[in-house]
């Protein structure tokens, strides 16, 4: 149990490094992830018309590639480029969140 706990702790602190978006923006980004990305990928990110975005589904996919997919979209599919709404830093932060073992929770969920 303890090593797992430490890894989670390490990942959480990594996510709050200096180049993370401000806390308030992080909240908005998580909301966007679950509500708006969720309209294709499922609110719990288990997939819908778009593929699942759970850590297990993203294993082996590089953060660089995933960030590029968010910002530039995937031509020929329904995945749009989000670069008009998200910055490079914000997309990178979202990828870090997605790759965490425990799926990121929207604080507004009751």
């Amino acid at each position, binding site marked *: 149990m303890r090593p797992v706990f430490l890894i989670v702790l390490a990942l959480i602190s990594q996510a709050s490094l200096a180049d993370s978006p401000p806390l308030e923006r992080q909240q908005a980004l998580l909301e966007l992830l679950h*509500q708006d990305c969720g309209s294709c990928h*499922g*609110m*719990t990110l288990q*997939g819908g*018309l778009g593929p699942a975005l759970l850590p297990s589904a993203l294993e082996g996919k590089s953060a660089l590639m995933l960030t590029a997919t968010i910002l530039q979209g995937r031509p020929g599919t329904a995945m749009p*480029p989000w670069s008009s709404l998200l910055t490079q830093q914000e997309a990178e932060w979202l990828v870090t969140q997605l790759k965490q073992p425990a799926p990121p929770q929207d604080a507004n969920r009751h």
Partner: protein
Amino acid sequence: MRNQNLNNFRYFLVCLMATVFLVSLPRAPLADVRGTGDLGLVVERTSGSLTAINSTTRRAVGKITGLGDLSHASLVYSPDERYAFVFGRDGALTKVDVLENKIVKRVEQAHNSVGGAISQDGRLIATSNYDPGGVRVFSADTLEKVADIKAEYGDGQLAKVVGLVDAPGQKFVFSLFEAGEIWTADLHDPKNPKIQKFKAGKEPYDALISPEGRYYIAGLFGEDGLALLDLWNSDAGIRKIVPEYAKNDPKLPVFKMPHLEGRALVGDYWFLPAVGHHEMLVIDRREWKVVRRIPLDGQPVFVIPRPDERQIWVNFALPDNDKLQVIDTRDLSVVQRLTPGKAVLHMEFTPKGQEVWVSARDDDQVLVYDTETFREMARIPAEKPSGIFFTARAHRLGL
């Protein structure tokens, strides 16, 4: 001793009178005796709950919890308007009593689901599933499974099913995303559905049925145009229409695919949201051609006419999802712009159209507008509200 007898006799009399009194009382009803015609349900997508609403009092009248993952959830009503059948993203099908605000029955029928429909006779519920890809049919009464239609294509792969609607002749019509097909299923014999398959085009993603139940139209993600199936003449097969309805190379990124609405038919003109453009298309259904493009303030998601067809209301995808626009159908001008709140997801008119109910997801509010004066009439709190459904839908095909 005599006294004792008298007491016994008195006791007997009291008991007798009490019995007569109780038997002659009218039986107390469990719920208030009332109709359900002015009731509705609001889907609360994050908390997996429903808020029951009353359009006469403009108030929330109940809350139903425990429905699971309700992102992209929809529901249909039984012909008596008493029960709602709710289709959750997690594959659950829940039967809800609208009068008593409680769950009657719930089945986990698939892993990932996107919607459903109720048959013409109201006895069957069909679900539209992504995983396992296909349509499952249940008894509306007991929610027991009566048929399993696998969306098989190619070498036995299963396609995701979208655009499931009910149609006249006890039919369900639906589209297979990966297979690029439209299927009709005749459920006169529920245990042996009669299936007809049609090649539709690349990646149908949503579909509509016209209000009278004759035309089924699927939007295609993988190619330009729409696929039309005339159910009065299905032997003629699929016709590709409106080639201008382009999917490729949209000018703007599409953050949310528009919903296709069978109700958006005004006279001979169909009003459809354009994909990836700030406009609405007007299509003449006699020739299936675009006759007008109406510029809008954002990418439209829902394009819904007021029941009297005098106005058309439009909401938008990100980043314009805080707005509504109202178009006058007489001259196609914009008559009103509203900003109801953050993340406006859905609009539902009262059956005769005097009011429209609007969900603002990120404000946790449902707003009620008078459609004549555009005055805000009420605000009803709801948790992350998405779809709003009034019971009058029970009597409309495809809703």
